[in-house]
């Protein structure tokens, strides 16, 4: 009941505001009158009685406000504060706009990057209980994680006690026959329980059943959602239909859900069980699979690894030839998928947070400058009866308003940035980073944004209150904002700019080092000339060109027709393009050398005789392959310099033999030449020992055609495709690209480019904010010292001395900022040294250029206020205030 009445009373006070005030006025006037009367009765003169009563009564306005506060809703006074704050900010629109923009930038960048971090590192993989899923492979001396062979996988699956589900997968491809012709579709080949192990429920139909991966089982296929949508028109009756893949009929058993991706395989459109083992899959020594395992309850990854390692050791004893040194490898599946981007994302988040800090510091120091210039206003309001709490609330309201504006705009910036950045990621990379689709404003990002906004608000609200030392209100009135007034400013304001400069140094050094790494990466020694090279991948139909003679004839026809195209200088084939991976390897053995079953792993490539010439790779000794060296001739091999150095130190390898681990007669090849290293592995790999076989003696059904042209290599791509299809429209062609584009879109190049541009952007923002901050500090300090400077000049100080006075202050701040920044930068770069390539964390040229850039920028920024100070007219300055 009493609460209700209280509420009613407050409501009346709120809505009948005018009446409420009038009544209070009247009541107090009555009180004063009565007091005056009483004093007069005591014998005072009417005038003295009036004055005494008024004095006794005190500050009527303050009293009214207090009375009102006792009953008024908080809301109402907050609204009043808001209006006042808005008016204050409108009086200096430049300040309000600048502060809002800076805050929005800091907030936007950090929230956007956090969106990536959240999608990649915080949100679970889109599988059932993803934390129990393990990535499983073999391990050898040179590969910490290598593929499994099918035979090994089957033994591991049979013998392990750690996994409730254990299934293998590998890539593949089919030629899909469509009314429009033959189209290559990427495929995944998996063991039957693969989708059950991941915990994926199909969108339509079913997934594979046990036994469907046995030899002779019926051909079945699962469609990816995208393929079902685009290639089959989203037909609801697709399950049970038959699809022609590689001229064989497969029955569609189901469609996978839309959100399903399996990044380790990339963009597979169709999934089939591993029914007919390929030639490779029939050999225990040929590794082409990886596996996923679902840990049983209570089994740790370490225990699973121990389990598998024991099995591997047992297999090593059973099959010493193929399994020598083959161990086991287990890691969480999430690490496989996001392990590469994790350090990059954390670095970017660090950078974004630094930008946020610098933005907040910048706005705080702007606020501090502003509150300095408002000392008088504060003093006057204090003297007129504003309580400290009241003034505090006013400042907090202003901070809140700024923070709210910054947050709103910042969220818009964040959304824009997330959109922009996720579209900057090229498609082929996006397939390997499935989390990109999850980026957006969700609970996590909003929580993060709220946290940032709260911190921002706190900082903005508290900064000016530092200034609000009410003991000094009277000093403020008396001194008019001079002299000791700026002591606090000097203590805090100038230190803030040191923080800004130091952060700018850290970000600039980071950007510099990443940029240098990126440059080094793209300019790493290739061993060949990547310009003017165009390429296309070829997949021959499975039921045609099965005879060696037919296939060889097709090779030669393609070569001749392509070479006859205008502008084409030379044409070559390879089974694996350079700048690819440490994959497609071979175990070699040199006759007559001691051998203990070790695996001498080298990369192996099948190439045409003109391959090295087309790449412009250098022949060091011996000769290249000959055009007529087909299967009827003795087997020949080219080796690269690394292989020669490692296995033939101090010898001439030409004429020597190389064979496989057991030196089978059919594997023996004669070395005919040594070529300079061509970069076969990734950009950031070492040069690998490598061997080249003559493709005429291998005759692969899938390979890549490289064309060197005198003209723009990009323009020749469509005519290459149509030329090959004019030979046979059933040949599958895909992935036509120029060599330079391919190199730039390799994962290492993309990740480096991404981080370089982003950190570069952050560094630029930091540089601008830091220098603007310094300018603000110096300009403010000059404006505070105008009188002092005037006195000095009146007493005979030269303009040079005034310049020196200002520039010395700037130089001191800059020097401290740079020094602190350099120390932090070296620390920060050491933290990201794994992202650096070919450059050390303490790279002197980078550090020196950052110091020079920031130094010059700072001096320029402080020169403007310095010259303003030096041109001060002493008489004006002395007269000022």
């Amino acid at each position, binding site marked *: *009941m*009493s*609460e*209700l*009445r*209280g509420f009613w*009373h*407050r409501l009346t006070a709120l809505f009948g505001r005018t009446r409420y005030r009038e*009544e*209070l006025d*009247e*009541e*107090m006037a*009555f*009180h004063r*009158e*009565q*007091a005056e009367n*009483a004093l007069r009765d005591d014998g005072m003169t009417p005038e003295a009685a009036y004055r005494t009563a008024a004095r*006794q*009564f*005190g*500050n009527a306005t*303050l*009293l009214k406000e*207090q*009375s*009102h*506060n*006792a*009953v008024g809703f908080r809301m109402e006074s907050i609204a009043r504060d808001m209006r006042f704050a808005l008016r204050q900010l409108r009086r200096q629109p430049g300040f309000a706009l600048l502060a809002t923009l800076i805050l929005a930038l800091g907030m936007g960048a950090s929230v956007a990057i956090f969106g990536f971090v959240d999608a990649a590192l915080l949100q679970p993989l889109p599988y059932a209980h993803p934390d129990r899923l393990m990535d499983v492979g073999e391990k050898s001396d040179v590969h910490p994680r290598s593929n499994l062979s099918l035979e090994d996988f089957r033994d591991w699956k049979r013998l392990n006690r750690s996994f409730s589900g254990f299934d293998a997968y590998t890539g593949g491809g089919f030629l899909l026959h469509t009314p429009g012709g033959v189209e290559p579709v990427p495929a995944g080949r998996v063991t039957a329980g693969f989708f059950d192990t991941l915990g994926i429920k199909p969108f339509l139909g079913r997934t594979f059943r046990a036994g469907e991966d046995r030899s002779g089982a019926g051909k079945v296929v699962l469609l990816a959602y995208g393929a079902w949508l685009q290639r089959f028109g989203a037909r609801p009756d697709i399950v049970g239909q038959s699809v022609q893949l590689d001229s064989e009929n497969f029955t569609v058993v189901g469609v996978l859900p839309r959100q399903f991706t399996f990044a380790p395989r990339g963009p597979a459109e169709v999934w089939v069980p591993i029914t007919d083992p390929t030639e490779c899959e029939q050999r225990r020594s040929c590794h082409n699979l990886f596996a996923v395992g679902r840990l049983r309850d209570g089994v740790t990854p370490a225990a699973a690894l121990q389990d598998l390692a024991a099995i591997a050791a047992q297999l090593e004893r059973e099959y010493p030839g193929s399994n020598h040194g083959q161990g086991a490898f287990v890691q969480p599946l999430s690490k496989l998928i996001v392990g590469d981007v994790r350090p990059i994302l954390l670095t970017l988040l660090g950078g974004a947070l630094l930008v946020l800090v610098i933005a907040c510091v910048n706005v705080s120091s702007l606020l501090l400058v502003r509150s300095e210039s408002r000392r008088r206003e504060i003093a006057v309001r204090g003297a007129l009866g504003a309580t400290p709490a009241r003034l505090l609330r006013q400042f907090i309201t202003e901070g809140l308003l700024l923070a709210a504006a910054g947050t709103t705009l910042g969220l818009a910036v964040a959304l824009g940035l997330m959109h922009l950045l996720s579209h900057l990621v090229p498609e082929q990379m996006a397939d390997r980073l499935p989390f990109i689709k999850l980026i957006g404003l969700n609970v996590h990002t909003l929580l993060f944004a709220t946290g940032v906004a709260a911190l921002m608000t706190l900082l903005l609200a508290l900064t000016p209150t530092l200034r609000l030392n009410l003991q000094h209100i009277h000093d403020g009135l008396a001194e008019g904002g001079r002299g000791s007034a700026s002591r606090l400013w000097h203590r805090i304001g100038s230190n803030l700019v040191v923080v800004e400069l130091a952060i700018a140094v850290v970000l600039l050094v980071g950007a510099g080092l990443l940029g240098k790494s990126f440059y080094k990466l793209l300019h790493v020694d290739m061993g060949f000339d990547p310009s003017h090279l165009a390429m296309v991948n070829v997949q021959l139909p499975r039921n045609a060109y099965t005879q060696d003679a037919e296939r060889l004839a097709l090779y030669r026809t393609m070569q001749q027709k392509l070479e006859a195209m205008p502008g084409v200088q030379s044409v070559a084939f390879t089974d694996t393009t350079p700048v690819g991976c440490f994959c497609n390897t071979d175990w070699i053995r040199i006759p007559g050398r001691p051998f203990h079953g070790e695996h001498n792993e080298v990369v192996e490539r099948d190439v045409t005789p003109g391959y090295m010439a087309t790449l412009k790779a250098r022949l060091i000794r011996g000769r290249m392959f000959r055009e007529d060296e087909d299967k009827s001739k003795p087997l020949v091999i080219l080796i690269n310099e690394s292989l020669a150095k490692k296995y033939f130190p101090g010898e001439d390898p030409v004429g020597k033999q190389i064979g496989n681990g057991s030196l089978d007669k059919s594997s023996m090849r004669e070395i005919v030449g040594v070529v300079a290293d061509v970069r076969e592995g990734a950009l950031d790999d070492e040069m690998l020992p490598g061997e080249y076989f003559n493709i005429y003696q291998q005759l692969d059904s899938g390979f890549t055609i490289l064309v060197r042209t005198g003209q723009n290599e990009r323009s020749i791509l469509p005519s290459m495709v149509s030329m090959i299809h004019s030979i046979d429209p059933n040949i599958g062609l895909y992935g036509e690209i120029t060599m330079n584009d391919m190199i730039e879109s390799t994962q290492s190049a993309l990740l480096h480019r991404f981080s370089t541009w982003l950190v570069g952007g952050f560094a630029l923002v930091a540089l601008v904010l830091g220098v603007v901050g310094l300018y603000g500090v110096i300009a403010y300090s000059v404006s505070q010292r105008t009188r002092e400077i005037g006195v000095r000049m009146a007493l005979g100080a030269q303009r040079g001395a005034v310049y020196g006075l200002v520039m010395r202050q700037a130089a001191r701040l800059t020097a401290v900022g740079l020094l602190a920044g350099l120390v932090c930068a070296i620390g920060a770069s050491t933290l990201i040294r794994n992202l650096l390539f070919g450059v050390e964390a303490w790279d002197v040229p980078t550090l020196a250029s950052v110091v020079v850039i920031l130094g010059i920028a700072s001096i320029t920024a402080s020169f403007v206020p310095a010259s303003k100070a030096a041109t001060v007219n002493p008489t004006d300055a002395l007269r000022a205030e």
Partner: protein
Amino acid sequence: MPRKSDLLPGTLDMLILKTLNRAPLHGYGIALSIRRMSDDVLTVEEGSLYPALQRLLAQGWVKAEWKMTETNRRARYYTLTAAGRKQLGIELSQFEEMIAAITRVLRDQEA
């Protein structure tokens, strides 16, 4: 500038309620009454009185109405409500407890 009240914190509300328990009064009357009753020891500052009255109004412990004084001036008279009477009882007993406690402490120190 108004001096700080010499009253113990929280006692002003109780004194106002107690004063109004006898008869409805206007603000000036309340201040006067407290001063007289305390033999000029307790002076209620206007700066504290009117906010306190607004507080009590908001709590619903007193109600206010405009009436004419004996000298025919319009003044706002405050009357204790039933809830206010109850509150007065609570505050009085709390105050007595406190005084008793303070007295005990002081007596201890003397001993």
